[in-house]
């Protein structure tokens, strides 16, 4: 039996048990629900990954303890 025939047979069988969705019309406006969600969970401000904070801390440490490295850093920027 070909794939096409296999699929046809399975479609027939499935439709005996599971009807295609008949009512797909939205019955109410979902905007109020959306608005509630927006208020409850405001979109997060851009989050900074933890390793970026670690890098920033290391860099700050280097600049504080070895101020001589500042010109070198500026030169390379």
């Amino acid at each position: 039996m070909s794939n096409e025939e296999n699929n046809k047979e399975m479609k027939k069988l499935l439709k005996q048990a599971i009807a295609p969705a008949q009512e797909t019309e939205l019955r109410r406006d979902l905007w109020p629900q959306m608005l509630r969600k927006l208020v409850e969970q405001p979109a997060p401000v851009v989050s900074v990954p933890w390793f970026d904070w670690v890098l920033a801390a290391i860099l700050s440490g280097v600049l504080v303890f070895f101020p001589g490295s500042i010109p070198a850093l500026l030169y390379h920027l």
Partner: protein
Amino acid sequence: MELLERFAAGDLDAFEALFRQHQKEVYAWTVRIVRDRGIAEDLTVETFWRIYKSRARFDPAAGNFRAWAHRIATNAALDHLRHSRRETELPDDLASAGTADPAVRRETRERIKQAFFQLPAKYRLVATLALIEEEPYKNIGEAAGISIALVKVRVFRAVRMLRKKLNSLGVEVNAK
């Protein structure tokens, strides 16, 4: 500024306009996958929540909002299928099964549903859309973010898994 540009810039009014334009379509797509009105409504809101969160990644110049919304809705529905078991009851207004005995028919239907709900989520998604809803492979591929060839592969595998499962449940399905 255009609506999509305003939306991408974070304008809530533009988002509301887009929500109102597309909520029906997103809901209709979602309900065909999850087959439950309440869940589809929640997933529609979840879809737009994801859209709103990732608005900065949307390119108004190149982007097709409808296709993007469909993709996100499909992912939200897939996440739901992954995390849900058989809580979702399917409607019973169905075509008649092959046998005349209503009890046997009911039993057969239950087994078919059982086998179907045991499919892994990604196969259930394509099987629902391709075999039950008879959605073109192209649309399924676009919404799921996969190629038509991969849709065909997943349908093929879903059919094979279903056949195996149904046979083990005592529902006779012809061998390939």
